[in-house]
């Protein structure tokens, strides 16, 4: 009998503790597949964030470091500079990367740090209970903006890809929306390119994944995907913002 589907080697046996339908699980699996496909499991070091994916070190089979909230790009910098032949990635939510960790991500990008960043933009602080994130859309409700985000009080959502693409440092910046089969395929390809860039000695690569949070959004998983398509995509347009 031929085996046609199995768990990637880079994923551990620990079952994901994510909510049903959460794209964190999907993106974890894609990262693991990419590590397997590139054959870099033995030299990959992952940096996980503070957020729902804080336990990523349990799910991956590569060496892992748990960073403080927002500091993953600095931690990754420390690792990569000491071990230039390693493959170093960070995995960060929007609170982690686009709020508390803005300085670290901007400067890692500006330095062209040879790391791969997987940025999960779900428009909320999933882990702490659905508070407003820097990427929460205008009008979108959260536990700290129950009437919907009001620009006059809370400013505007941050478009990380567009912002980082103004810098000369990054090699690859892209935004993907894994809400349908085409989007899923593009997401996997983007993650693979971000990792391959590092294998090829290229600089900073970032993949922003428009993700969901069915639990805090109070939607079914299917509703959450249509919501991304209808509301998030128009503001955070998928595309390639830098490729050099």
């Amino acid at each position, binding site marked *: 009998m031929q085996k046609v589907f199995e768990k990637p080697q880079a994923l551990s046996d620990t079952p994901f503790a994510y909510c049903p339908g959460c794209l964190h699980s999907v993106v974890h699996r894609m990262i693991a597949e990419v590590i397997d496909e590139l054959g870099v499991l033995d030299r990959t070091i992952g*940096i996980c964030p503070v957020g729902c994916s804080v336990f990523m070190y349990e799910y991956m089979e590569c060496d892992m*470091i748990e960073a*403080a909230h927002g500091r993953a790009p600095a931690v990754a*910098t*420390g*690792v990569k500079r*000491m071990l230039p032949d390693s493959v170093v990635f960070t995995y960060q939510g929007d609170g982690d990367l686009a709020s508390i960790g803005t300085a670290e991500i901007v400067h890692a990008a500006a330095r062209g740090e040879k790391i791969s960043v997987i940025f999960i933009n779900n428009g909320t602080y999933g882990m702490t209970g659905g508070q407003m994130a820097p990427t929460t859309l205008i009008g979108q409700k959260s536990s700290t903006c129950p009437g919907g985000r009001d620009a006059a009080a809370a400013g505007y959502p941050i478009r990380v890809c567009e912002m980082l693409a103004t810098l000369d440092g990054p090699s690859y910046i892209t935004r993907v929306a894994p809400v349908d089969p085409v989007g899923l395929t593009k997401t996997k390809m983007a993650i693979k390119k971000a990792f391959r860039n590092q294998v090829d000695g290229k600089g900073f690569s970032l993949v922003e994944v428009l993700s969901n949070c069915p639990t805090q959004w109070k939607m079914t998983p299917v509703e959450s995907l249509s919501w991304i398509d209808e509301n998030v995509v128009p503001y955070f347009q998928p595309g390639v913002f830098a490729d050099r």
Partner: protein
Amino acid sequence: MTTKKILMKGNEAVVRGAIAAGCRGFFGYPITPQNEVPEYMSVLMPQAGGVFLQAESEVAAINMVYGAASTGARVMTSSSSPGISLKQEGISYIAACELPAVIVNVQRGGPGLGNIAPGQADYFQAVKGGGHGDYKLLTLAPWSVSECFYLTALAFDLADRYRNPAMVLSDAIVGQMIEPVELPDKIEVNIPPKPWATTGRKGRGKNVINSLWISPDQMEEVNRRLQAKYTLAMEREVRYQELAVEDADLVLVAYGSVARICRTAVDLARSERLSVGLFRPIGLFPFPTLPIQWLAECGKRFLVVEMSHGQMVEDVRLAVNGRAEVIFYGRSGGVVPTPTEILDRIRKTYGRSAGVSHYRLNPGPEARR
């Protein structure tokens, strides 16, 4: 081992001590009065085959140290008071993950932005933990340029030995002063194997560097392990120096640059036939509690002098535990106590009135005019 006598600043000696000890990664951010550390590092570290990186902030720098230390390399950062405050979150993580790393604090006047003059008001922050949680830094306090070299090198050994961050607690005087020193070309470097390091899992199972322990029982277990290390260090790593203490009835207690000033005050007091000595803690954590307790039992009184409003004095009082009188004299905000004002404080403890300053006994040119 060949040696040569050269003039050097304390901050440069820190750099040379670190590189001699095998430090191969430096991550820092500019702040006076420690700027010579990153400046010399930017030249000498690449020459030694190591990494120098000017970070975007102290927060980033300490997290780069966290990542770099995770690979098992000897790495460090340096800063001065306000920057050290910013590093506290990262230091807590480094301690919790049991990573060896060295942090240098060239203390300045505070609190707040303060100034760039010397201070010792970061003592509590250095020896009582500093960031959140129950942890300690192995803390060494140099009083000379030569000690900047040797104690920085020692800090790396201690950090590796205990898998714990170590701090070199310098100040603006020690960092900025220039002295002739004889430094060895090479020192013995023994870096232990680090099978826990995250270097890529080739040839072994995966390694994880982590301080998240959701189960309180597991977290308490980690805390117990940390405390056991600190207990061991308290037994093994006590460092201090005594000068003219044996026949003294009053013992000055001071560390770092203030101990240098106190040494002059001891000489002045001795010239007035006052039996005064100096006790200088070299390690601040572990603190030389037992030696001070012993001196108290011998019936000696203590005068603690600091560039703060009384921080180390609390550890002296804990050691003395009511057995003897402990007096405190401190200046702060960047003000450095002079030997004369310390001498006056000494005289007061002997019931003598403040004398004429020995500086005024030898009037300068303006005074003669």
